[in-house]
């Protein structure tokens, strides 16, 4: 029963810290503090335009996505084709970004490598949102024993350091794009569950929900018609930031040689190739292109997430 829980408790930092793991409590509070509804915000400042940087960031993400989707159609050499006439070539007309020590085209490897990061990033978060978000939505509104159990479960799962758990599972289960995506998708379920649950909880006792309840609306209707539309901004914003986090974890795995098996390129293993065996002193481009692309991608996603958070009036806090 939602009435049993006082939102004010969730709001007050001290009480909350006393009850739950502090770090996660901060995440909860961050979400719950998204209090003002979109309609009644008459503050002109909240509606300031997104700005040039935001659209630039969207442009970069769009470009990377487009290139990755169209990789097979684009006039690119096979990313694994070894051109022995052009080993370690600097950027030139034939190889716009140059070639690596085996004569493979760096632009082609970069674009095919983007596929791994993007597929893992977006698919696993979509999976996590489907499971974790749905559970969080229901759990936050319904409360009761289900909520207590799911809540405790999410705390236990988040008690693992993600990277160690993922490496261990990869080690025992094996590495492929599918497996990595599933593992990371499962890994973000508890996180997205907490975010959506906290947001759902903050709306469960709002007047418009209570009004709907007194008018005899079914729980399903309330959850999907009244609460869901209000939770969506938070879910999108945090989902996006989680995508960045997952891309970082995949990149870390790939750098360590634990993501998709070689020679399939991914940005992480491209960076690792570019730094190993003295490649840094012979051909710095191998490392440079994926590093720049990754930096810009993460920066863009963070920027978009940040602007969305400002627009949706979600308080800045622990991310």
């Amino acid at each position: 029963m939602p009435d049993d829980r006082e939102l004010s408790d969730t709001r007050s930092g001290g009480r909350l810290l006393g009850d739950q793991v502090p770090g996660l409590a901060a995440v909860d509070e961050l979400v719950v503090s998204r209090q003002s509804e979109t309609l009644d915000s008459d503050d002109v400042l909240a509606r300031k335009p997104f700005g040039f940087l935001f659209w630039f960031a969207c442009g970069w993400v769009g470009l990377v996505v487009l290139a990755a989707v169209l990789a097979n159609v684009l006039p690119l050499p096979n990313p694994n084709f070894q051109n022995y006439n052009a080993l370690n070539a600097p950027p030139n007309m034939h190889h716009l970004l140059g070639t690596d020590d085996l004569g493979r085209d760096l632009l082609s490897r970069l674009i095919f490598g983007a596929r791994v990061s993007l597929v893992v990033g977006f698919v696993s978060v979509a999976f996590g949102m489907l499971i974790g978000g749905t559970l969080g939505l229901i759990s936050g509104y319904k409360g009761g024993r289900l909520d207590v159990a799911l809540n405790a479960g999410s705390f236990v799962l988040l008690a693992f350091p993600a990277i160690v758990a993922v490496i261990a599972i990869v080690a025992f289960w094996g590495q492929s794009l599918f497996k990595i995506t599933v593992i990371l998708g499962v890994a973000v379920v508890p996180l997205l569950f907490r975010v959506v649950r906290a947001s759902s909880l903050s709306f469960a006792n709002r007047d418009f929900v209570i009004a709907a309840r007194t008018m005899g609306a079914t729980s399903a209707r309330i959850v999907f018609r009244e609460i869901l539309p209000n939770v969506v901004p938070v879910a999108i914003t945090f989902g996006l930031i989680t995508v960045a986090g997952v891309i970082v974890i995949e990149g870390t795995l790939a750098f360590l040689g634990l993501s998709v098996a070689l020679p399939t390129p991914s940005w992480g293993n491209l960076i690792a190739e570019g730094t190993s065996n003295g490649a840094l002193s012979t051909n710095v481009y191998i490392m440079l292109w994926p590093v720049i692309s990754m930096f810009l991608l993460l920066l863009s996603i963070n920027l978009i997430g940040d602007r969305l958070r400002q627009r949706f009036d979600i308080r800045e806090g622990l991310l």
Partner: protein
Amino acid sequence: MKARLKRTGGDTLEFKDVGHRGEPLLVVDDLHTSFRTGRGTVRAVDGVSLTVDEGKTLGVVGESGSGKTVLSRSIMGLLPPRDVIKSGTVRFAGHDLTAMDPVQLRQVWGAELSMIFQDPMTALNPVKRIGVQITESLRLHLGMDRSEATATAIELLRSVGIPSPEQRIRWYPFQLSGGMRQRVMIAIALACSPRLVMADEPTTGLDVTVQAQILDLLAELQRERHMAVILVTHDLGVVATRADDIVVMYAGRIVEQAPTKTLFKETRMPYTQALMDSIPRLSDPSGIRLHAIAGRPPDLIHPPKGCRFAPRCPYAQDKCHQSEPPLRTAGSPDHLFACWFPLVNGVSTAPGMSSGSSVFGVSGGSGTPGESADASTASDQVPPAPWSLADTPIDPDAGLEPS
């Protein structure tokens, strides 16, 4: 890098012998405070002048949004410097506070001029023991050492009625009840025996029963220590028996100002009257609705032309909407009001308003302008003129908030 509790820089200011010269302790002259915001400039305090004599109590009354809190902070000089425009002078004990630099101001704050905040829950540091919060100013301003300050703090806590202060001094604010917290706040404000205390809605967050206790405590300490108090409140009932003089504020301006007795007896300004009507009285028949003032305080970025209360005033005439009434006297020189058609014996002097019935109470009954016609009160049978003070005296203890 380490912060130290010591007064630094500048000469020590002298604050003696003001009272002997018969000069008021505080003289505020034409004070303006505006905030720059995204939408425009908010004129929160717009030309306020007032005086407070030593040992006296001034009540500042107004709805929320009338600028009374900004006024009290402007007088102290506590507002942050950014995006704030101030003009006018504040003379306190012979010194111009508005001309002081921050270092000098810090010698005045807490020592000669201190403040009691509205909500002791947020105004006390949640992670510092209350003892430390009291001894800080003792050590800073009076140069006491730790043990001396602690002993004094215990005495202070005892004097504000906190039982077993020796133990409580080690408590944190969240361990105390609301009333206790407000007592601690008073102890902090009075620690260095200031000459003037600004009490900003000191009882608003408290239970009604505790409100009276806190106000009585404040009055008692004021008598003992011969302090002046500025009591800022939205509740005329709170200041009715405790203030020597009352200032009524509306939309950043003073609209009526008089010694307490005069104000209640010879109310001139319809707004003051409306505030009085919003105090529930024991003599009201049961089931009666509380008298609310229809409408909202005006937007302080674009205040209305003419009298700022005119849009909500049942007696407003064309003149009221056209030009702004000056603050003027009639009869006794210490009674000021800003109204073109002041009330006389509770009856407006505006043309066509000779009937004695209260327009605030039974709106809609006597051809009232639509502005104040509140549909919910129209059907209620309210006896006429519940505000004729001669037969129904104000009950100051019924300090409920106006709805």
